[in-house]
């Protein structure tokens, strides 16, 4: 097949006429990979795509794998910090009237726990996994807008540092992860704590929005030739749908946090009922983001499950189309549920009924997914390895969380258990069961690709059982103590209520669960150093990330694969069909059409640059300064403008021309 078959005359740009006049493009050409032997090809590509040496070089990297690795490690560190928050709270609650932690610190602890887990761990880690895997799975050489991707990482790190340095200075937010007004407003939230919450949100949202746009464009425009919509791997679909949910949900929380900081800083009255504002408006705006947020975390996890199951069931997934449609349906429905977080606010009955119905409806596409996975396992020849164990654990825990979710969707029950530990139990079952367990499975599954080494299977099994038992011991009794009436966010309780023993049991479970992560961390470090070599495709899986070496070279693929099947490596057992004709002296990659993935353009990907870091410093400094004075926006504009111009101004690389 030649490009003439793929690109009709009418699609070609005026470049041809221009070249006839002897300008644009053709004069600037370089060596191509056509017919080049493997060794020379590797030399050329390695030189073109390498991240420069030295500290400045490392800070300038735009390689999606390098950025993703940093993201993954940072998010894992935040998970450990958030986990330590939880352990501290559980020790305080392990018995009645313990005096280890006072109410003020306790308020900061549960707020930091929620904020860290949601904004600094869960969303970044699912996006980071996508940053690593999506370009590999769609068969391209880098993510779209690689500098934007680097920028997003730096902004994310500054947001996380900002929150945790505030905590170290005892000025961390203490208003809960959703920071309702009036508690977080100017009247009841003196000091800078609520401002820290508001701006930390802004940092992390800027970062996730940037990643979402880069992911969408990577999936739409950079798929390997032949990867039409029906051949996109389910994991990539899940990241695509998630990115759309991010694009339409995250602006809501940015609007919320901006309104809040305006009310606090310059005296607007948006949430002030005394001057024509409304406190419930905050909840509407926050949950318009907050509910989709759950699915932003959960959808990529379902994508991981859809990647792991076929690899270990040894057959393509059952109901590929049904799974894709379920993902899209969940994405849409996730926007119709936010009011079920507000049943206790006295909304009109009709509104409450509508949101009850929609909350129950979302169980349908989720149920379809579960049945498709079970059918895949049923019909396959499952090989039980650690990744699959975590997927099985996910089924068990997530289904329980889903069932309590259906219970909570009904208003009378919700009113009864509102703000009790029943709700805490429910959302930990959904979030840890629905996202963390698949994520752990994914860690064991893709670790060999990222590091070139296998994780220890024996430690993995220990980790799984410890996590499963620890998790259920910690969170199942919370349903019961919640039904007994124990409220959330209390730093202690009197002995007469009789909640002491069950809380001691919960705390023991929490410690066990924490220890399972210690074991996991040990396994990670041990396997990086001493794990068995993995080879390209240790699980004999079918998607493109396994078609390259482990870890992949900077340029991902020596030649871009041509895709003929949804599991390309199962359909084309050696040799892999590839496309030729790209330049090797410039960072060329294939831009393809959205639906059919016909190759359309040979475009240049951005070269390493220090400017995204400088821009992130300018943006971060401005956000930080803005909690003290609104003039920060004015003073910060100049450095932001300078760094952005530095970022976009062409430097004369081949990548900048054409």
């Amino acid at each position, binding site marked *: *097949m*030649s*490009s003439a078959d793929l*690109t009709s005359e009418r699609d*070609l*740009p*005026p*470049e041809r006429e221009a070249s006839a006049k002897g300008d644009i*493009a053709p004069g600037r050409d370089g060596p*191509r990979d056509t017919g080049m032997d493997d060794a020379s090809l590797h030399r050329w590509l390695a030189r073109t795509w390498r991240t420069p040496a030295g500290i400045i070089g490392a800070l300038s990297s735009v390689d999606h794998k390098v950025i993703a690795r940093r993201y993954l490690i940072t998010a894992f560190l935040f998970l450990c910090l958030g986990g330590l928050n939880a352990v501290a709270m559980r020790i305080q609650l392990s018995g009645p009237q313990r005096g280890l932690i006072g109410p003020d610190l306790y308020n900061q602890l549960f707020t930091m726990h929620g904020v860290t887990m949601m904004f600094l761990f869960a969303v970044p880690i699912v996006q980071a996994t996508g940053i690593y895997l999506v370009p590999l799975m769609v068969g391209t050489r880098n993510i*779209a*807008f690689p500098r*934007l991707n680097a920028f997003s990482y730096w902004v994310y790190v500054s947001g996380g540092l900002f929150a945790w340095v505030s905590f170290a200075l005892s000025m961390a937010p203490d208003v809960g992860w959703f920071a309702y007004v009036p508690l977080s407003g100017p009247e009841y939230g003196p000091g800078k704590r609520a401002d820290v919450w508001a701006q930390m949100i802004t940092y992390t949202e800027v970062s996730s929005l940037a990643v*979402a*746009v*880069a992911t969408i*464009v990577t999936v*739409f425009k950079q798929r390997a*030739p032949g990867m039409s919509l029906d051949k996109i791997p389910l994991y990539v679909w899940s990241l695509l749908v998630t990115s759309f949910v991010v*694009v*339409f949900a*995250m*602006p809501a929380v*940015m*609007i919320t946090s901006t*309104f809040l900081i305006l*009310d606090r800083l310059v*005296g*607007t*009255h*948006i949430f002030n009922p005394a*001057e*024509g*504002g*409304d406190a419930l*408006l905050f909840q509407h*705006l926050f949950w*318009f983001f907050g509910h989709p947020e759950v699915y932003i975390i959960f959808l990529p996890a379902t994508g991981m499950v859809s990647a792991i199951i076929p690899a270990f069931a040894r057959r393509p997934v059952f109901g590929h189309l049904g799974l894709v449609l379920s993902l899209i349906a969940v994405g849409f429905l996730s926007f119709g549920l936010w009011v079920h977080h507000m049943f206790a606010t006295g909304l009109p009955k009709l509104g409450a009924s509508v949101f009850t119905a929609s909350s129950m409806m979302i169980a349908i596409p989720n149920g379809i997914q579960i049945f498709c996975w079970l059918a895949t396992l049923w019909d396959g020849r499952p090989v039980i390895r650690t990744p699959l164990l975590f997927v099985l654990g996910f089924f068990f825990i997530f289904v329980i969380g889903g069932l309590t979710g259906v219970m909570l969707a009904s208003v009378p029950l919700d009113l009864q258990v509102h703000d009790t530990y029943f709700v805490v139990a429910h959302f930990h079952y959904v979030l840890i069961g629905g996202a963390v367990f698949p994520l752990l499975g994914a860690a064991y599954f893709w670790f060999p690709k990222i590091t070139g080494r296998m994780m220890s299977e024996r430690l993995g099994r220990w980790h799984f059982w410890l996590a499963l038992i620890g998790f259920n011991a910690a969170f199942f009794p919370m349903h019961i103590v919640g039904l007994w009436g124990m409220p959330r966010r209390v730093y202690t309780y009197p002995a007469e209520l009789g909640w002491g023993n069950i809380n001691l049991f919960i705390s023991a479970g929490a410690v066990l669960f924490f220890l399972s992560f210690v074991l996991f961390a040990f396994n990670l470090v041990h396997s990086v150093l001493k794990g068995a070599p993995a080879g*390209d495709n240790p699980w004999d899986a079918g998607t493109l990330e396994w078609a*390259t070496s482990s870890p992949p070279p900077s340029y991902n693929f020596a030649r871009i694969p*041509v895709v003929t099947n949804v599991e390309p490596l199962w359909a084309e057992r050696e*040799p892999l*069909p*590839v*496309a*030729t*004709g*790209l330049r090797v002296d410039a960072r060329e990659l*294939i*831009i393809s059409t*959205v639906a059919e993935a016909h*190759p*359309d*353009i*040979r*475009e240049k990907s951005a070269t390493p640059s220090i400017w995204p870091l400088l821009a992130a410093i300018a943006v971060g400094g401005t956000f930080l300064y803005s909690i003290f004075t609104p003039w920060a926006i004015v003073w910060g504009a100049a450095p932001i403008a300078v760094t952005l*111009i530095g970022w*976009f101004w062409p430097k*004369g690389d081949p990548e900048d*021309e054409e």
Partner: protein
Amino acid sequence: MNQRPAMDISGLPTFGHGPRSPTWWGTLGFMALEGTGFALAAGAHLYLATLWPNWRLSAPQPNHWPGTIVTLLLIVSLVPNHMLNRYAKECAIGPVRIGMVVMSLLGVAPLIVRWFEFPALNIYWDTNAYGSMLWVLLGLHTTHLITDVGDTIVLTVLMFTHHGYSGRRFGDVGDNVFYWDFVVLTWIPIYLLIYWLPRWG
């Protein structure tokens, strides 16, 4: 893995305009998320408006004239904007340079009139929630106006350098045209909300 060449893509062009280019899609993505921000801010305004029987909360009506002039300027600017788009597609450097200068001027002009819009609201942001929302809506759009005008001016300068004559830069001009359409389009509902809702509602 062993490979076998199955497709030759050496004849493909090195740049494309509009939906063929990833940058166009990136711009569309940012429009989608910023548009969501606009919609939610407008929604918050309407939410508060339905909550209070007299939403202006006894404030005087805003003077719509500066806003109306901005609206007219923005609508007029669409004509040269789309001429510029055509020149960019034709990779005609001369007309593109002129078009970029014109668009920079047509970006600065509404920005100058915008300066007079804030006092014409006849209320401060800290008077009451109605005043807060007017300032927020106007401020949100002004931020977009400033960033796009800044971007246009930088690109104009770039087009006059030796970097200008390249397919990728012409693509950037096309995306700049696309984004300006967005800045103009988002203004229309905000204009109606700020100046005509208090008169009709």
